């Protein structure tokens, strides 16, 4: 027996279209999964039971009357830095614990207009940068789900919902996707509007979908992407047909494996899995060659990332400087450090971005896409936040964003997809990156890979156990209309 909560977006839409299942049943299934599992996973910060049930009923009606939108009846969750009208939007911070926006973020409006049913707001690191002590990785509850979109990654991996939205400034979509064994998309800078999303850093902030398949991510990005006049960084290009072209052959596509930066420090099991993924695509007709990225030896991407984040974080939060004590301890450290960023360092970082872009430009003369690790290691334990590379342990934050922040800095689209498991049974993710605005190629390559592999279909043991509970007929009848969980920002082991 398959629970509706276990189905992907495309599978659910097929069920709804054929009237074999309804959005009301799908939402009920996801709410049940949250009810049974989220006490251990802690992905959900605000649970919108009554609202979701009402909207699902309307979606069910729209399927009956032929008025269904492209995501009609699909349950989803939003990272809680994304504004939702009439629903608290906390930023994962005590400072905004009572913030109830009057207007939803543009991407939330678009998802709602497409028929999506918002069922939960999800845990985030404080303002996408501080910490989140609560969310666990569904593959091993003693382990980290990464961040800052930790709730968004864990919720999808735990089959609590088929779609969530995260944000990525240094790797906060790609990291949780890699650690939790799901798909995450950081589209081209400016492709997804950020209006209504609490900013961490306007130069590097991106938003994007997190799903369990590349096809699902294409369906979601098709709705979310596109010009927004309210976002000064919004790109004006028309949105490609991500879904229509996803089945095109990968024959002749040129894939590059960088010889610099990405694999310099990388767990051997992760590197092997990424190279095998490139090999699978080669077997499907793509060509694979090595490409250099020489500027990474001169300009340390981590220095660019942190300098820009420090400077813009200081500016964004200056309005709350007098409320420093209300921030969580990790964000406080960042905020105080950010006070000492000089203007010349910040401007150097902004200008040096382009040197890395020129490396990518040269690489994309020779290849169409790059395959690189999602994260350099698999998920660390909550009580020992390190990146284990072979037998060496690195402080997590020293290298965690190494394969991801460079994508935010350069601005190219990248998609993380599961490509295997390590010897502990933890998911490994690879990224496929392409030229700016060529998200279609990322979807095409990942989808081709997923048609001949099944890593994206693997189910965490926690969820497998839940399936037997459902089969035994467990069902709750008493749910609150809304459940607001507490914000927790202290960590046992400092991230920063």
């Amino acid at each position, binding site marked *: 027996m398959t629970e509706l909560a276990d189905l992907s977006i495309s599978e659910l839409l097929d069920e709804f279209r054929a009237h074999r299942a309804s959005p009301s049943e799908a939402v009920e299934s996801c709410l049940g999964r949250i009810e049974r599992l989220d006490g251990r996973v802690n992905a959900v910060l605000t649970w919108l039971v009554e609202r979701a049930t009402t909207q699902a009923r309307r979606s069910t009606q729209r399927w009956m009357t032929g008025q269904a939108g492209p995501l009609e009846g699909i349950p989803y969750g939003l990272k809680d830095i994304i504004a939702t009208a009439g629903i608290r939007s906390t930023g994962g911070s005590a400072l905004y614990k009572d913030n109830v926006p009057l207007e939803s973020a543009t991407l939330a409006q678009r998802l709602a207009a497409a028929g999506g049913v918002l069922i939960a707001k999800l845990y985030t690191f404080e303002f996408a940068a501080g910490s989140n002590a609560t969310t666990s990785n569904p593959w091993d509850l003693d382990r980290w789900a990464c961040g800052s979109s930790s709730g968004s990654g864990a919720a999808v991996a735990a089959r609590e919902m088929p779609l969530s939205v995260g944000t990525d400034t240094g790797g906060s979509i790609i990291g949780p996707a890699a650690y939790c064994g799901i798909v995450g998309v950081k589209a*081209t*800078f*400016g492709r997804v509007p950020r209006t209504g999303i609490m900013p961490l850093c306007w130069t590097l902030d991106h938003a994007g979908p997190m799903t369990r398949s590349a096809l699902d991510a294409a369906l979601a990005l098709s709705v979310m992407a596109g010009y927004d006049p309210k976002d000064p*960084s919004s*790109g*004006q*290009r028309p949105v490609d047909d991500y879904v229509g072209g996803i089945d095109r052959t990968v024959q002749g596509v040129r894939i590059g494996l960088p010889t610099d930066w990405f694999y310099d420090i990388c767990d051997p099991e992760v590197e092997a899995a990424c190279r095998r993924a490139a090999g699978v695509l080669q077997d499907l007709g793509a060509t694979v060659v090595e490409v250099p990225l020489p500027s990474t030896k*001169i*300009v*340390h991407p*981590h*220095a*660019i990332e*942190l*300098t820009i984040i420090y400077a813009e974080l200081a500016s964004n939060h200056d309005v709350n*400087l007098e409320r420093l004590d209300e921030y969580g301890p990790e964000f*406080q*450290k*960042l905020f*105080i*450090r950010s*006070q*000492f960023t000089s203007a010349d*360092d910040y*401007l*150097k*970082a*902004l*200008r*040096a*971005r*382009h*040197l890395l*872009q020129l490396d*990518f*430009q040269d690489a*994309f003369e020779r290849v169409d896409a790059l395959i690189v690790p999602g994260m350099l290691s698999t998920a660390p334990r909550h009580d020992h936040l390190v990146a284990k590379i072979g037998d060496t342990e690195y402080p997590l934050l*020293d290298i965690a964003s190494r394969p991801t922040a460079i994508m935010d800095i350069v*601005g*190219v689209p990248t998609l993380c997809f599961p490509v295997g498991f390590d010897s502990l049974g933890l998911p490994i993710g690879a990224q496929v990156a392409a*030229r*700016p*605005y*060529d998200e279609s190629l990322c979807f095409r390559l990942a989808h081709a890979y997923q048609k001949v592999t099944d890593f994206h279909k693997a189910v965490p043991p926690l969820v497998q156990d839940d399936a037997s509970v459902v089969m035994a007929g467990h069902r709750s009848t008493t749910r609150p209309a809304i459940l607001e969980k507490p914000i927790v920002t202290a960590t046992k082991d400092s991230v*920063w």
Partner: protein
Amino acid sequence: MVRKLATTEPTEETLRAMAVDRGLDIEPERLRAALAMHVKFRHELDQLRAVRLEFLPPYIEPATAVRWIENGGRLP
């Protein structure tokens, strides 16, 4: 003036002076935490500071990166 890579780390007093100049009263414990983060980051920051960006064309300004993205991965 000659630019060299820094050979000494900033001290708590350096940061305190910068804070005072900005009218910020930061507790010693917090200042020490900020200093620790800065020191940890210093090597990478020095690398960034050592990057030479040309005055003459092809000149790079912050908006160059955005234009490169908008133009599909190259400059017009």
